[in-house]
């Protein structure tokens, strides 16, 4: 099976090479048959990579520990779901997985565009397959998944216990689907620039794929946060680790694109800027992979380090030169007239939104890469950790929230002062009311007050948007309120889906603010029967508990009797898993409520004295992050539902009716 996998990857490289040659030369010489042959080679490459993936998985399931990869990341007792996940647990496997997603996209694109976008397709295929070739070179020569050991161990090392969590099994595929998806808009941008066919078709395809990638990147980031919270045992969900940053940066530029693309649709402005954002997002995704895979900045995520760094840097360099070169070459053709009706218009709020989002992306990138810069300039490698990012990103995030609140009250094209005043009254009241209530409640943390008040402001403006829309519709059609509300949402899925996404984002802000500004912690070393307390909770150490949660691990934990305000509310058993492989992992125990989480950890146990060392965190409002995440996902799905075409047809029909009536 291993030899078969190696062979498949080798032939796949040849097939991808042929695909690039045939597509590019077919385009240059105008030979349709050659272009077709290039597209067929994409299918062939896909099938070969699929076979290689199946080969690796079957080696994992067959416990072939004579293979280095299987011996390193799997063992006999590993549950089946994590055997599947072992595919992306290590360096070479995750590169193979990455390649598989990319080549699946390429095959899908070729399939979907058999008749559409024909002039662009040869170069789209060329770009996609060049990227695929890069990854094929990596898995064929640098990070080979099918390397044999000189001996066959009886059992493998098994997967890092912290990775044996269902969220961790879904988180990387989600991120990869997002990351790799950014290659598709990039390929279309390259093809459009190279052919000079910069019309609407490439643009629509690009938008759809960017939303798709943005959605998966965001979901992946949220799942990663949830995993860190459940599994890592330090009570937080985001540490501004370089690898976390690497996933956030392209997400921010994608978010910027999803906003600025609306300006291009309406006004035919910002074409160069939008192409730049597409190119930037792709390059940043590659940079992210480079950071993850090269270990250039030491990081917890460097589970997988190797010396493929220089190759990645080279690939990144070539991509930058080619894409920037093409963009500059087409600059004259991309010039469009920029005109705004007013300074105070929704268009300008979108422009400032882009400024802040790209500024935020830059700030995160800057902080992430600064250690390298410092080493180059001063010769001293320093750390840029969470305190830096919190200081820099909080103001930017607050400005973004403000903008999300102001944007809906400002009309497209030109906002009239009267309308603005009328629309801003209630939200402004909400803002001031919240600030006053918090001050009265004794809250003195300035960032928290600003963040909560602004959140109330955004919730109010967004809610008003739904209220006004429903009222206008009811008035116009005479429908009942519920019906008007439904058809309002139904007919404007993108618009209201977007607002739902904003609400999700605000809930996340509320959760982040609450859990960081008002976090409490307590530590204690207790004998049986002793208690310690945090906030309204008191926890009594009752006794030790043990069990066998997995066939390959034993659990030891401290049973805590929890009471809130003196009333018993339950039992928590924080502890540790001891794996047969010798590894250990902290198993936190959490009492979830909408108000706050009681998060408990057992950091140590002394069998001689019978004392347990315990740590507890009180994380206010933290569950609103996950609820907000769910709202965000819901809103994105709603916005992605197809309705654009129906609405266009509807509007066109109405215009036609008016025109014919006049005639």
């Amino acid at each position, binding site marked *: 099976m291993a030899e078969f996998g190696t062979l498949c990857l080798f032939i796949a490289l040849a097939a991808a090479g042929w695909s690039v040659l045939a597509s590019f030369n077919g385009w240059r010489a105008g030979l349709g048959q050659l272009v077709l042959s290039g597209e067929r080679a994409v299918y062939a490459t896909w099938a070969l990579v699929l076979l290689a993936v199946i080969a690796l998985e079957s080696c994992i399931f067959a416990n072939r520990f004579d293979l280095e990869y299987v011996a390193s990341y799997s063992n006999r007792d590993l549950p089946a779901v994590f055997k599947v996940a072992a595919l992306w647990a290590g360096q070479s496997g995750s590169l193979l997985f990455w390649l598989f997603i990319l080549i699946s996209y390429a095959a899908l694109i070729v399939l979907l565009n058999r008749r559409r976008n024909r002039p662009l397709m040869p170069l789209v295929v060329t770009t996609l397959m060049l990227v695929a070739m890069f990854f094929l070179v990596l898995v064929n020569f640098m990070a080979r998944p099918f390397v044999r050991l000189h001996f066959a161990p009886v059992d493998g090392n098994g997967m890092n216990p912290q990775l044996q969590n269902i969220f961790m099994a879904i988180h990387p595929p989600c991120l990869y689907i997002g990351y790799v998806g950014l290659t598709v808009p990039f390929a279309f941008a390259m093809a459009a620039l190279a052919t000079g066919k910069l019309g609407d078709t490439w643009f629509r395809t690009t938008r759809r794929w960017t939303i798709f990638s943005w959605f998966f990147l965001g979901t992946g980031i949220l799942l990663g946060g949830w995993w860190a919270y459940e599994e890592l045992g*330090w009570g937080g969900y985001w540490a501004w680790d370089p690898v976390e940053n690497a996933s956030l940066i392209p997400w921010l530029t994608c978010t910027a694109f999803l906003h600025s693309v609306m300006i291009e649709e309406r006004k035919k402005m910002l074409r160069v800027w939008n192409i730049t954002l597409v190119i930037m997002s792709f390059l940043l995704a590659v940079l992210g992979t480079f950071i993850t895979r090269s270990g250039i900045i030491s990081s917890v995520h460097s589970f997988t380090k190797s010396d493929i760094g220089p190759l990645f840097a080279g690939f990144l360099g070539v991509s930058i030169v080619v894409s920037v070169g093409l963009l500059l070459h087409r600059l004259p053709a991309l010039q469009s007239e*920029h005109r705004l009706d007013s*300074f105070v218009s929704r268009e300008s709020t979108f422009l400032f939104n882009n400024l802040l989002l790209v500024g935020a992306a830059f700030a995160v990138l800057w902080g992430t890469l600064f250690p390298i810069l410092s080493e180059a300039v001063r010769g001293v490698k320093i750390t840029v950790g969470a305190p830096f990012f919190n200081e820099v990103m909080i103001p930017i995030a607050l400005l973004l929230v403000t903008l999300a609140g102001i944007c809906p009250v400002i009309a497209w094209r030109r906002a009239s002062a009267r309308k603005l005043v009328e629309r801003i009254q209630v939200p402004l009241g909400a803002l001031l009311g919240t600030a006053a209530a918090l001050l009265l409640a004794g809250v003195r943390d300035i960032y928290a007050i600003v963040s909560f008040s602004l959140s109330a402001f955004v919730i109010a403006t967004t809610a008003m948007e*739904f209220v006004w829309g429903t009222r206008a519709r009811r008035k116009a059609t005479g429908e009942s309120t519920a019906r008007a509300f439904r058809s309002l949402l139904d007919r404007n899925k993108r618009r209201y889906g977007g607002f739902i996404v904003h609400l999700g984002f605000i809930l996340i802000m509320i959760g982040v603010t609450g859990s960081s500004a008002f976090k409490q912690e307590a530590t204690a070393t207790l004998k049986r029967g002793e208690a310690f307390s945090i906030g309204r909770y008191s926890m009594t150490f009752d006794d030790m508990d043990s069990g066998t949660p997995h066939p390959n691990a034993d659990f030891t934990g401290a049973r805590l009797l929890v009471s809130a305000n003196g009333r018993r509310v339950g039992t928590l058993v924080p502890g540790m898993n001891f794996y047969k492989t010798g590894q250990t992992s902290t198993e936190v125990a959490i009492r979830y409520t909408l108000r706050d989480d009681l998060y408990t950890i057992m950091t140590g146990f002394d069998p001689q004295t019978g004392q347990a060392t315990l740590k507890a965190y009180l994380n206010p409002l933290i569950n609103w992050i996950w609820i907000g995440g769910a709202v965000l996902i819901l809103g994105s799905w709603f916005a992605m539902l197809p309705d654009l075409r129906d609405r266009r047809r509807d509007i066109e029909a109405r215009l036609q009716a008016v025109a014919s009536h006049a005639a």
Partner: protein
Amino acid sequence: MRRSAGPAGLLTALTLLLIVPAAPARAGEPTPQQRIEQQLMCYCGCSDLTVRTCTCGTADAIRADIAAQLGAGKSPEQVVAWYIERHGEKIRSAPTTAGFDLVAWIMPFAVLLIAGATLVMLIRRWGLRPAVATADPGPQPPGGAPLTAEQRRLLDRVRKDIEETY
């Protein structure tokens, strides 16, 4: 206006109900001990966390040591300096505000400010361009018959619809 204030007000009130009880009245000023912990990265090698957040044994030992040093009468600055001297610049959790490190702090905001100023300038310039759209009479019906007032109103409504739906 009155009627629409209802649901939005209700939502905001709900938000407040959510936030206020969860926010403890006393704002937790960090103690000197916590401030020091926040400034140092844990050098356990198992995580990328500050001494304040890391949960490993090394972090426990560092925290105990910081308490001991503070107890011995050292100032927080002296304690931090003691650690930097032994473990190097790398364990400082964020760049300092002196020398080249300052560039780390200034750059993000400088870029935002410069880009922001450029954007304001661009918007002003774009706003000054003559408005072509207002001179555009819109789609003319075949036959060239002028639209009646009612038809024009209808057309305006459709246009507004298109604007609002995007």
